[in-house]
């Protein structure tokens, strides 16, 4: 009896439930990916799914493994910032699908300050965060004062930002190619310093202090949400905005501040990514980079917990990068996108099963209490 109740308590633990749910989502997503691979061509499906899961472990030499682990970490840190942005807004009841656009604006500001204005890296990063905060703030203000649904306004802003940034960065592009000029040749000072981190990852110069910075930001977000008054007000507004307003919390100000913070997080992610010099911006891009949308996947997969998103962001980036190692003569890299999209879909169903599980546990406990009482009398 005692053992049984202990087990029930274990199942009730919300942390345990969240982790299990995320793991189930991952397994389901991979399973769907595997089935799709099987349908396309049953021969190489097992190898392909293994390649996705292995990612950089595909290389036999340990130096190469370390090097590509570094690259994955750089990308994952940008993704982590985007997912923190989504998570932060979601806690206040706002769905920040605009992380993608804010990320774009951040990239635009960082690169423009670096390439055109020749600013040092810390100015570029602040510029990225500030510009993205303004973009997020627009959606927030529209929501607070004009009741414009933030999802729609964010999506419109995503496209507007993409076109604006393309126009802006055309001025800093190479003469013959549609890419922005590399930071390493134009302005070395705009590259984020590595402080020796590149030595750990087999001289992979893209691994900068941006990676630990992103992880530290995750902790900072946790502290703000759980330990400060602002975090509390924000969550209260998310749960019931009328009640929050009635308690004297300034609902409008909170919404705008939330969206600005969320925006600056995404912008910071873009700064960390593009100022490492790992990629140049393609000024003829016709679709918004997937980073912001993958951020939604990572945020929900991480159980909407800042620390959880550190792991989920890494995982999502791991399989996204792994997609490029599948046998291209049979399959395509987008299979990873399919898997992460399906993982988000599964995350949507998690709440339902959590409620069901808790109800089932309630029933069981009630039943147990009844029989015990009956036995005693």
């Amino acid at each position, binding site marked *: 009896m005692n053992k049984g109740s202990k087990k029930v308590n274990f199942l009730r633990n919300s942390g345990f439930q969240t982790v299990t749910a995320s793991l189930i989502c991952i397994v389901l997503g991979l399973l769907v990916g595997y089935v799709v691979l099987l349908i396309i061509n049953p021969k190489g499906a097992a190898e392909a799914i293994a390649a996705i899961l292995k990612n950089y472990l595909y290389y036999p030499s340990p130096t190469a493994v370390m090097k590509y682990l570094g690259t994955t970490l750089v990308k994952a840190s940008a993704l982590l910032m985007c997912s923190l942005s989504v998570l932060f807004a979601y806690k206040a009841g706002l769905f920040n699908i605009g992380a993608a656009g804010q990320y774009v604006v951040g990239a635009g500001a960082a690169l423009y300050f670096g390439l055109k204005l020749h600013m040092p890296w810390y100015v570029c990063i602040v510029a990225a965060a500030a510009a993205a905060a303004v973009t997020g703030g627009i959606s927030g203000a529209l929501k607070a004062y004009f009741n414009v649904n933030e999802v729609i306004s964010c999506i419109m802003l995503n496209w507007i930002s993409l076109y604006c940034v393309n126009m802006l960065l055309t001025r800093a592009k190479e003469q013959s190619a549609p890419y922005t000029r590399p930071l390493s040749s134009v302005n070395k000072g705009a590259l984020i310093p590595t402080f020796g981190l590149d030595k750990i990852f087999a001289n992979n110069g893209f691994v900068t202090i941006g990676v630990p910075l992103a992880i530290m930001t995750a902790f900072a977000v946790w502290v703000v949400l759980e330990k400060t008054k602002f975090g509390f007000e924000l969550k209260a507004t998310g749960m019931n905005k009328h009640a929050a307003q009635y308690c004297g919390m300034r609902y409008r100000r909170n919404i705008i501040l939330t969206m600005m913070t969320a925006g600056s997080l995404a912008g910071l992610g873009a700064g960390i990514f593009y100022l490492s010099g790992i990629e140049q911006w393609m000024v003829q891009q016709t679709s918004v980079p997937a980073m912001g949308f993958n951020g939604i996947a990572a945020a929900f997969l991480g159980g909407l917990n800042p620390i959880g998103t550190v792991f989920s962001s890494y995982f999502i980036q791991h399989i996204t990068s792994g997609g490029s190692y599948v046998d291209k003569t049979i399959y395509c890299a987008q299979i990873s996108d399919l898997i992460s999209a399906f993982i988000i879909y599964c995350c*949507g169903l998690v709440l339902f099963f959590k409620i069901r599980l808790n109800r089932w546990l309630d029933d069981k406990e009630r039943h147990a209490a009844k029989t015990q009482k009956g036995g005693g009398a």
Partner: protein
Amino acid sequence: MLLLIQYTLIFASVLAIVAIGGCFSEHGGVINIGLEGIMVIGALGGALMMKFLPGTMAATAVMISVILASLLAGIVFSMFLGVAAINFNADQTLVGTAINLLGPAAAVVIVRAINTAQNPDNVSSTVAYGHAKKVFIVNIGKFEFNWFMPLAFLVLVCAYIVLYKTKFGLRLCACGEHPQAADSVGINVYRMRYAGVIISGALGGLGGLIYITAGVSEWKFENGVAGFGFLALAVMIFGQWKPINIGLTALLFGMFRALSNVYTGFDTLAALKLPSTVYNMLPYIISLIVLVFVSKKSRAPKAEGIPYDKGQR
């Protein structure tokens, strides 16, 4: 000028049809953010049908089978939203977003698999359908008349009649306004909501097909449908969830979208020397401004986005 009218009409048809789809879903109480993804899958269904149909078939038969393929593809894909939102009480925005990501990814995977199966060197995500596309188009002088234009008008008229003049439409609206009340008079809320989602899936799929047949004769599925599903949502909100207003708004938005294709043909616009990017942005900027003015007194269905729970009062 003729070109502007032509493009305006075809883009307006897409927007109107997809927005009407969203309108049905939301009147039933389910927010359909996933229209973008549904459009891509509908377009895929239609494009593959056009690609694989034998060239000897009669024009009407081609037309009907292609339209049916896109409708069906849209319906099947919209079931992802239906099941999650209606049976599993999922967050509709989250699931809609998942659908938007799932649609293009699935389309690219499918198209590439087909392309590489035919020719191992072909790793593109493009489907060409130049031949079969011709059945939808009639050239009247210089004007390229597209059969989808009258079809869109027909859909608008039908939507008006169904929503306001039939038992089904009124019941559907009841489920979006106050599902508990609807249930108390014996309406099956779950079934009505499924009907709304299915209609939106069908129309979304059809809209995707029209979008890819407008102007071009092959489609690269990596590009998706460039935010048209979201523009349609803006049209729906600006149209205040009413078919007639949606039709008029679609025309307005269609014109702004068409401008980016044909602005070089106007001397005054070409003289301004604005980069083409500005015209590409125009529909999105306009819709953002428009939303500011109409969102305050929104006529959105009251219970949209809230999962229906039979036990709740």
